[in-house]
């Protein structure tokens, strides 16, 4: 916000601009959005949701921070290289299906089971979650990377 104002000629943006509301709300909304994105991610497989939507939502949450603060703050908050995230996401998404060769089953064959956990009750465990985690990471990091790249080109 400040950067945009400065670019359009408002040199005194720092003094005049008081975006405490935006920044405080962004923090709160960020938490809500990121929790919802995790919720969507875990809801996947049996109910609507999944890695792609979850990943996009996580990226949206981080972009909210990017708008309210700036790129430096975002990098301090999330000190990770996006490229590394994309790579690990791809590894999860393709490495896991490949592992099914070890069980003598074709590519992409998933294993699943149910277990009883004291508080949560009956929990379904599915190896597709790990594949979805890969999708989640890749999508979130790619969306962020592209927006940060475009933002850099502006400056």
């Amino acid at each position, binding site marked *: 916000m400040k950067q945009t104002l400065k670019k359009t000629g408002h040199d005194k943006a720092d003094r005049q601009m008081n975006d405490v509301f935006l920044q405080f709300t962004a923090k709160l909304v960020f938490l809500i959005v990121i929790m919802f994105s995790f919720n969507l991610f875990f809801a996947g497989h049996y109910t609507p949701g999944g890695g792609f939507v979850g990943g996009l939502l996580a990226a949206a949450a981080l972009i909210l921070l990017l708008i309210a603060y700036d790129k430096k703050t975002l990098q301090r908050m999330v000190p990770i290289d996006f*490229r590394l995230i*994309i*790579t690990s996401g791809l590894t999860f998404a*393709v490495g896991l299906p490949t592992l099914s*060769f070890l069980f003598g089953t*074709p*590519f992409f*064959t*998933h294993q699943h089971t149910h277990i009883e956990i004291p508080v949560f009750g009956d929990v379904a465990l599915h190896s597709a979650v790990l594949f979805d985690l890969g999708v989640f990471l890749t999508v979130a990091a790619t969306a962020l990377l592209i927006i940060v790249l475009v933002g850099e080109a502006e400056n």
Partner: protein
Amino acid sequence: MTTNILPLLPIIIPFFTGIVMLFTGRRPLAHRVMAAVGSLLALIATIWLTIHVYQSGTIVTYLGSWVAPFGISVVIDMAAALLLLTTAIITMFTVIYSFQSIGIEREKYYYYVMVMFMITGVNGAFSTGDIFNMFVFFEVFLLASYVLITLGGTKIQLQEGFKYILVNLISSNFFVLGLAYLYSVTGSLNMADIYNKLSAFEGNYSIMTLVAVLFIFVFATKAGVFPLYFWLPGSYYAPPMPILVLFGALLTKVGVYAIARTYSLFFIDNVDFTNQILLLIALATVVMGSIGALSYTDMKRIIIYNILIAVGVILVGVAMMDQTGLVGAFYYLIHDMLIKAALFMLVGYLIYRTGETGIQKLGGLIKLHPWTGWMFFIAAMGLTGVPPLSGFYGKLFIVQSTFENDHYISGIIVLLSSLAVLYSVIKIFIGVFWGSDMDFSKLRPIKSDKILFASFAMVILSVVFGLAADALYPLFDMAAQSFYDPASYSNYLTEVE
């Protein structure tokens, strides 16, 4: 175990090589080693695969243990195996060629990674048995090719890359549209299953002709067939030579393969119309390619227009849809992939050495580079189809098939196109290697041992392929069989049930 893992190896190996390279970050030297090792592994895997397919027939695996036609199947018949093998060979030598030619800047920006991802997509498109999955793999290699064509960010690359992406984006959307129609008509996406359903169906399914027109529009754009080749000469002119080797040798051929596959399996009802259309546009492609190749004096452009001629000739063989024509089309397809890679590599060497692409400014290079000159001559003869070099057998079978089917004019056009090819490449040879000497002091001192190793290896491979063509006939007959006798391709489904 073998049936589970073997058909997927050509897809997984390049992909994992790419991922490992991404993990190591911007280290060009490490990338070079990994790319070479990865492509060598892929080559070994495809050789194993070809032998396996030759011994025990089509090899199938079902992703996620979902039986076909419900799940996605990866089907490797002889045609796919041969194409995978040729792709692996070309990838390996192109990677070696790139060491000294692509430039360290592009290597830092993940050039080898993108090459590996593109090969993943190309191999996937060759080996999948599911038409939607083919679309996905098309997008995978197209996305990688978008990055490759703009990698480096010179003005001409950005300008032509934008057009290339736009054209492919639109044709991809039409691919989805065609898939939508196909799915609503047949209710299936497994290619073998669609064939079984269509051939068992008694009623009128002329709607498939509409789907055929949509599909031919899509694949003709990707393969560069008349009248949709307009983007090809401009866009292929932009990227540096090693990328052009991959594009020219592989990408258009994927489109040709897709045309052959869909024509043999889906469009079997209104053959008079669909095959006639294919024949006409193939001949028009040959003619337009010949005109282009004859009219330019720019080495790069001449070779690019030669791609069009080759695509047209292969499609003439496919349009015949009989045994002779398809065996010829397959000989010519494999031959063209090898020889185009060889020619592009040699022309690339000349361009890197002299810094010029126009042949008028060059001359007399045979004194400095006798080996390169004569290798170029052999490659030119092979491209034209002088016996016993590799281009001869493909053209022989294709022309024989056109005469058997009373398409005399098509056969004569194919034969005449050989003259255009001969004239255009010999024009390069005479202009560059003979004639009055150019100013030799302008030549650039470049390291070229690996460039020349890769180029000569490709030329020698194509010569060996030509000499061994007779011994390889059973393989090509097997490959052509899944096209002229589609039931032999689709019967893996009935074996399951």
